[in-house]
């Protein structure tokens, strides 16, 4: 072994070389949440309860999503539509409350598959963000139902 080798000089130079090489490499991380990664088209994120073309809620509280759910994360109560609410709810029966527990949900998408009314979907661009309190993970209708598109109406 030479003196230089005994003083670890080639090893240090090699190590620094690797470090410097990484300065010019593409970064592995991104500045989330300002930047987001491109997700697959079939990526399953936060649930949404869709409205139909007239803005009425599609969900009829049939309970098929809840019975299909392997994590038993979905609960709902049904109610009867009153006269004059036809523009709000599509069918005679509608969900008065609809709750998804995002801590229990495993985002498998079986609810989406079970839905006969094409009401519940897992969005591909939203996730359930981290929160401090457990009850904040129980998403009610206020956070699940798709907002009305007011800009598109004349």
């Amino acid at each position, binding site marked *: 072994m030479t003196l230089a080798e005994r003083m670890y000089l080639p090893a240090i130079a090699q190590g620094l070389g690797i470090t410097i090489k990484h300065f010019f490499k593409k970064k592995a991380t991104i500045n989330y949440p300002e930047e987001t990664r491109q997700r697959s088209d079939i990526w399953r994120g936060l649930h949404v309860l869709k409205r139909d073309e007239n803005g009425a809620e599609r969900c*009829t*509280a*049939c*309970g*098929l999503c*809840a*019975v299909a759910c392997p994590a*038993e994360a979905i609960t709902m*109560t*049904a*109610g*009867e539509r009153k006269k004059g609410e036809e523009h709000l709810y599509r*069918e*005679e*029966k509608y969900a008065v409350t609809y709750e998804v527990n995002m801590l229990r949900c495993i985002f498998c998408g079986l609810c989406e598959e079970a839905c*006969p*009314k094409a009401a519940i979907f897992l969005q591909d661009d939203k996730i359930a963000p981290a929160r401090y309190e457990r009850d904040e993970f129980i998403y009610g209708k206020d956070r699940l139902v798709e907002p009305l598109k007011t800009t598109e109406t004349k």
Partner: protein
Amino acid sequence: MAKITFDGIEVEVEDGTTILQAARKIGGDVVPPAMCFYTPLKGSGGKCRVCLVKVTQGSARDPRPMPKLVASCITPVQDGMVVENTTNEDVLNARKGIVEMLLINHPLDCPVCDQAGECDLQNLSYEHGVSATRYEEPRRTFDKVDLGPYIQLHMTRCILCYRCVYTADQITEKRVHGVLGRGDAAEIGTYIENVIDNDFSGNVIDVCPVGALTDKTWRFKNRVWFTKPLNAHRDCPTCSGKVTLWGRGDTVLRVTARKDEYAEVEEFICNTCRFDKKEMSDWTIEGPRHIDRGSVISANHYELPVVNVPIVPNLPKSTVKKMPTE
């Protein structure tokens, strides 16, 4: 006594028994479905045609086959009869056609219907039907008929099995509803919108194979597969008081009569038991009701697997299972 061969299985039954009852004596998958026939109701049967079977040998004395498919619920057996049900292609094709006919005017509102999950027509179309419809014309629609505070009539869902008419005729003294009109225009109605207010009128809900007659006190309360069925009884002056409670936790959502595996009521119950006793304290609970594993109602129901029955005292009947004998 008459000996018949049903789907290759020999069974001996009393003279005058119908083919359907003989098949039910065998039990299992060979039993033809029945939408209109109802054992406790005299004269029911022969209307819906889903129980059609092929008789390949009329009797031992006259072995000629019957020329057409026969309705097994109203055809009595003869000694030496050979019947084919699931083994005959014609029978299965005919049944498929009949289910399609029954579904022509039946709305596709199972997500809204309270009967979904325990509906005979739903089961039938799932087993024998096709998933698509070839019918393009508008389905029948009706004006809403009010049958009083307890019973909800959805005429669009009715398949005209006449069960409720026979029930009202036979177990109540005066029926006020019946079938109006003929053929395509036939419908269940109370004529001058009379309120059904007999003590036993609620039983028409139990006999209805579809969701045409449903319980108004249970309307949209919950889905049947989220409720837990319990056997219970109470001291009732008008009926036997033996019922099934359907509830969640400590709340009773619905009370029905106890039904056997062919969805036939064991004992008819009165309206007081059915509509007014909605507290757990009104009832003596006997234990959970056993639900067939194939039914959606059994989803998320966990039954206690009891391996050694004798060491656990006072077991409810539903937990006792047939053990393989050594």
